[in-house]
């Protein structure tokens, strides 16, 4: 049964979407939504949308309750943050609503708010394909789409209701009004696959706050890129002086104290791509985060070589995010710009702090590649 509430419910969802959009920057920079993800949905807490009326200021009013306690004792132990107590009468307190939003919806909202372009086709490869689906019935259409059964059923209905149906001579002739046609909807479906290869420097100079920033940013990068492709795979590489592939959890929670050889990670990434993700059928997004301290100038030059010859040619775009840390010199981003200036397959972004995440997402995804 189609519920009558559906219409009002979708109006409400629309309003909520607006709310989420308004608060999106806050969500991004406070990391509020990560960890609220369960499967394909994220549950987002928003303040209940209240209809304002003339009413009393709550804190002056108080109320009446029942139970133990002496004058002066608090109402209910712990839950006393701000508007803990509720009062008698029929005005409830302020409620939080938990709204489930699919990752797809969230990506749409992200796209709208940050004005992200959809990712463009890469050469002959189609990222999104339109597909026609027959989804319903309507009263007009080309005769090739006529739905015979439905048309005759309608005609039969009409004849019975007007009393012109003769069961001895069961001839049913549809007239114009009885005709029913299949209707279709064009649906865009992502078809291509993509892989994100996250690389992160986990040497001593990358602190917890830096890693947290990477974690928050990667959540949104995942969400957006997944929205554009049919399938998304993610691979994780951590490195200090050597690189190794790890799972997501280890990726964000490892801390090493060795030196930093960025080239080790780039090498490993190139290997992974070569063996698992032929660039003819995959959209490849390597993201590398570090605080910009590399061990030596020599290693940096190796990195540049690797980028030029191995990584950039196969990637949709190669993104380097430099997270500011008190220990890092921040040199690497300058080296990259210097050597690869003008190569638009390379995007670099400096992320000073949490508030800079939004801007960084925009830099990475704003080119629509």
């Amino acid at each position: 049964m189609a519920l009558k509430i559906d219409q009002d419910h979708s109006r409400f969802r629309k309003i909520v979407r607006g709310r989420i959009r308004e608060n999106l920057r806050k969500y991004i920079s406070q990391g509020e939504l990560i960890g609220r993800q369960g499967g394909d949905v994220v549950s987002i807490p928003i303040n209940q949308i209240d209809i304002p009326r003339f009413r009393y200021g709550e804190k002056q009013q108080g109320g009446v309750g029942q139970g133990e306690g002496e004058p002066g004792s608090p109402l209910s132990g712990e839950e006393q943050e701000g508007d803990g107590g509720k009062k008698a009468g029929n005005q409830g307190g302020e409620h939080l609503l938990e709204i489930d939003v699919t990752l797809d919806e969230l990506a749409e909202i992200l796209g709208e708010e940050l004005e992200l372009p959809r990712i463009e086709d890469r050469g002959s490869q189609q990222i999104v394909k339109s597909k026609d689906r027959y989804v319903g019935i309507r009263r007009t259409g080309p005769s090739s789409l006529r739905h015979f059964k439905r048309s005759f059923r309608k005609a039969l209905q009409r004849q019975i209701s007007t009393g012109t149906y003769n069961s001895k001579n069961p001839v049913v002739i549809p007239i114009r009004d009885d005709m029913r046609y299949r209707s279709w909807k064009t649906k865009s479906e992502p078809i291509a696959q993509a892989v994100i290869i996250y690389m992160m420097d986990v040497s001593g100079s990358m602190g917890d706050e830096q890693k947290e920033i990477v974690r928050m940013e990667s959540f949104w990068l995942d969400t957006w890129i997944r929205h554009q492709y049919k399938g998304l795979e993610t691979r994780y590489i951590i490195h200090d002086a050597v690189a190794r592939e790890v799972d997501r959890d280890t990726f964000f929670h490892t801390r090493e104290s060795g030196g930093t050889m960025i080239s080790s990670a780039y090498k490993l990434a190139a290997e992974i791509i070569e063996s698992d993700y032929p660039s003819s059928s995959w959209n490849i997004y390597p993201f590398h985060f570090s605080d910009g301290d590399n061990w030596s100038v020599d290693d940096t030059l190796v990195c540049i070589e690797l980028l030029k010859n191995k990584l950039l040619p196969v990637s949709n775009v190669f993104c380097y995010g430099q997270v500011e840390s008190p220990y890092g010199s921040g040199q690497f981003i300058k080296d990259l710009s210097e050597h690869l200036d003008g190569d638009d397959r390379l995007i670099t972004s400096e992320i000073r702090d949490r508030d800079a995440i939004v801007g960084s997402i925009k830099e990475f995804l704003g080119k629509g590649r």
Partner: protein
Amino acid sequence: MQRQIEAYAREYGLDCFPLSFEVLSYEQMNEIAAFGGFPGRYPHWRFGMEYEQLSKSYEYGLSKIYEMVINNNPAIAYLLEGNSMVEQKLVMAHVYAHVDFFKNNFTFKKTDQGMDPEQGLPIRKWVDTLANHGAVIRRWVNRVGVDEVETFIDHCLSLENLIDSRHHATRSLKKDSSDSEQEQVEELPRLRVDHDYMEDYINPKEFLDRQKKIRDDDKARAKKFPEHAERDVLGFLLEHAPLERWEREVLSIIRREALYFAPQAQTKIMNEGWATYWHSKIMTERAATGSEIIDYADRCASVLASSPGQLNPYKLGVELYKHIEERWNKGQFGREWEQCDTMHERQNWDKQLGLGRKKIFEVRAYYNDVTFIDEFLTPEFVAAQKMYSFGYNKRNNRWEIESRVFKEVKDKLLFALTNAGQPFINVEDANYANRGELILAHEHRGVDLKVDYAHAVLESLNRVWKRPVEVHTIIEEKASALRYDGSEHTQRHL
């Protein structure tokens, strides 16, 4: 089963409208509950929000709606499919008591839509009325556009509580009756004359003319619009605001529905208490079988549970009815009782009058929450029920118990219930400074308005009135005016 419960209810003297039950799945229940019990209501996003909340809350196992009952004749009640037998019995008994309350409590008489001459019962076809409202608004949505109409409804809802619930929900608005014409011609002030023949000397014609002119000028100056403060702000706006036809219809619908729902807010404690009283009676004395009684007690306990800082209307209501019943059974009322101040004597006071049952039926008919509490809350009851008043302590930044003193508890409770806990707001002047500005006045009773909300309401008021609007109130002990002129909010001291 329904017939059986109904028979029990009648046996106890409950007097109900005919009642039909419908059994719903929880999705349907949530949907209908979101619409306030009325499928086919006008479209508005808040019903969608309500639905989202109810469904979530149900899915998380936080709450479940067992029943819903509509003040309509015939009354309609919805039961949740999948409730246990005991629950259904309990709920039915509960529902019959609600319907008895709808039929007999005086506040609900205001929702009558006339009398049925054949049955002698009031007509309350609100299910149809609200569906018609839905149709009217849907029609305007098609013509004017969904955003336009919905936004206007948002504004109307912000003003929804500015009604005068003493009015009948179906009262037709008075047209501008020219009260002034019916005013009696007042005597002109004259100087005292001891002898008739002196009259012309003492009060010559010129003098009288002069007096007349002074009086007319005074009058013109004093003539305000409206002449008396008007509690029914929505009614006033309907009559005088420059509204387009669709706006007027929408506003009028919001007002009528607000008036229809008002009695429920005014009798929450009484109505729930009454239903709880009777479902316990019917279940324990009649309906529940031996094996069901534990389940029943469990359900019943969860209904009566109270949490700190929150008054459970079911519990307060049912206890107060029981208290009244006991007092009237024992004759603990009247002058003799009031004057008795011997503790021992009071405690053992029992005249075995047995008037309790009769009394509570009378109470359910002639009282609302305010008068119920005002008249029957006793110091003994407040002590026995461990009632306290609480307030916000700014120093500790927390809610605290303030007092267990009878008078203070009672005053706080009455304040929370008066006008259903809403501030009193009147139309004071609709032609302020002769510029057609609208002034509302808040009758300040010790508690300030929530200022940010007041701002939002002024914006809605301005949308309807289309001229600058103000509300006069007291903010932090200073007489103040909040003003919105259509573009900015200002505040000044009066």
